[in-house]
């Protein structure tokens, strides 16, 4: 029983962390261009990478 007092908060905390990470990524626009993100990873041009850091509205 006392073990549960540790384990449950840990389990919930991890879940909440995942939820927080999802909400953050949603807010920071990472789902705006899923197709683009899939192909951008293949570019090795540094110029493109540098520009890609800047996120448009």
């Amino acid at each position, binding site marked *: 029983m006392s073990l549960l007092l540790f384990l449950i908060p840990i*389990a919930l905390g991890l879940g909440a962390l995942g939820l927080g990470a999802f909400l953050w990524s949603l807010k920071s626009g990472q789902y705006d261009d899923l197709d683009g993100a899939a192909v*951008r990873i293949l570019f090795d041009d540094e110029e493109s990478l540098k520009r890609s850091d800047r996120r448009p509205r």
Partner: protein
Amino acid sequence: MSCCGGDLAGACVEAVGDPDRLRRAEELRHAGRELPDGGTEFVLSAPSIHCGQCIVAIEDQLAKLSGIENVRVNLTLKRVTITTSPDFEEPIVLLETLDRLGYPATPVDLGDLDDLAKGQRSRELLKALAVAGFASANVMLLSVSVWSGADAATRDFFHLVSALIALPAVGYSGRVFFRSALKALSAGRLNMDVPIALAILLALAMSLYESLSGGETAYFDAALTLTFFLLIGRFLDEAMRERARSAVTALARLVSKGANVVEADGRIRYRPLDEIQPGMRLRLAAGDRLAVDARVLSGEAMIDRSLVTGESAPMLAALGTRLEAGVLNLSAPIEVEATSDAGTSFLAETQRMMEAAEVGRGRYVRIADRMARIYAPAVHLLSLVTFLGWVVITGDWYAAVYAAISVLIITCPCALGLAVPVVHVVAAGRLFEGGVMMKDGSGLERLAKISHAVFDKTGTLTTGTPRVDATTISDKDVPLALSLAAASTHPAARAVAAHYAGRSGAAIEALREEPGCGMEGTIGGMGRRLRLGRPDWVGEIADVDPRSAATLEGVAFAIEGHPIAHVTLTETLRPGAEAIVQALGKLSLSAELLSGDAERPVYRLATRLGLPAKARRAPSDKIGRIRALQEAGERVLMVGDGLNDAPSLAAGDVSMAPASACDVGRLAADFVLTQNDLSAIPETIEVARKAERLVTQNFGLAIAYNCVAVPLAMAGIVTPLIAAIAMSASSILVVANSLRLARRPSFRSKKQEPATPAFLAPEVFG
């Protein structure tokens, strides 16, 4: 002419050179957004972006231009966002660079984008969905422990933890249902959300009571999984609608948002639409659309009224000619006096007619709501019967409440909530592949029911640009005719020029355009005149009886004193138009043609396609015809593009518009065809019918599930475990059934051929 006559002449040369370029430059300037640092942000829509290479090509090439600060391609939306520095002056270069790279683009109005973002609910729903998903997964874990034997203090502890997660999660995620249920109840109606909200709230309340009093069963997991599944349906529905809406908004606006006003001091200032007052002098450059109704004060120009009236032939506007808002100036700049403001223009009239016509459509009740009307009272009644039955038979109030609530929970329309949206999302995906944008699911439901199709002519069955059918111009005269034709922007001249593309022109002197008549020039040396244009006007100089020349149709060409040569023009049919009657016949649909154009071109086309036709129909006549058909019991599909069609698009039971349609038309239509090919129409109807069948099947499945589950709940033997399994199983079954629509071979992809009508920039769908 006015004090700025010189200026006007200068503008004339430039405008005649390339009206499209001017228009695009102007459009782009107004679409940009000023940034705080003085730079400008543009969002361009380029539908031909399709792969990683496109991203590299566009970003690298545009970044090379001077004055560009940042370029970012969005592959999903097929948009390019460009930030320029304050000293960047020629935004048109952006479009031209993209043209050169092979990605024709149109500016997206950022004001429209902002409006769109404000109305976006899918993001809220996605957050609610994430929270519900998190909460239901965790509560489910705790519930599984309880089901597998946790007891006494551990069980109570687990129930309390579940309550702590479930209450805030439902409070956050369930708002959409509660709000909608409250709205329905306060209006004295029942919708699907009433039993949903009731089931969720009662389940929570009962579980809370149980956990606080140390009871054995709690339904926290049921309440949360319910919320989760139902939110999936809501989210899919909303996301699909927003995607369509944003694609339609992304199309360049055709109706100008303002006009160039000639001020009292002779200077020209661009003013937004709402500042335009009757009596103001406006300048309408070649390539511009008129923003308000107006009367011509000076200058002569050819005017394209095809979007406004459906007439395919351009009209000559001279002193005193009245023009409707939305007409396009084809040739030379003119000055006009506004005779209306934005609120009373022809355009605004059309808008009002459209709203009036739409009222009839508002009566259509979506299939899910029709179900809800039967379902919600039935569920509440069942639950009441259960309660009374238990009280009467056992006299145990607690058991009676428990059984009644479990009836509500188990009948909660999880599967029903998914039955419609999933099918519609799958259908929208399939239609999108085939080049059809679907605005919302109700259009699909209405389309499945149609029995009769009404077509507009200009811009719908035909592309609106004429094409040379036959010509008697002798081979040695072709260079002369070509040179004359190439110097004009009149659609007929363009058709002649396009017909002889590849041939070289000849030197012609004193080239000039006689508005309303044609092109005239002289051949060097002999000083003989030559003309290309209206047959009676050409006949004046040719060796021919003027009266016989006047009976000719199309365009004529002659050298002074020589016999007349004649070019017949036909309208270019859209691909798939020839076969449309047959294709609709296969679906047992009848069709007809209603056009605002003159009798001759309408009947010629009608005979060719085998359609019954009526010519010279004003917008009100079209609505009248549609109403008459509807009263005769027909369900009418209206396909049209122009402003003159917009009210009838709204009046039809369901409507489609080609992407080249005016924006009012596109907004009024339920479906927008993004490709030139009309064969998408019968294919869309087939998808709609299949979707309807699947929706019906899904309802059947959901009802079958209830037939099994409800007796169990009424008997009071539903445990939380059974409820969880039954609800999930029925939802999964419904989703799996809906996905069958995607498995069928989707209709052939026509992505390679984006529609690019002559006057319109390419459109955008992403």
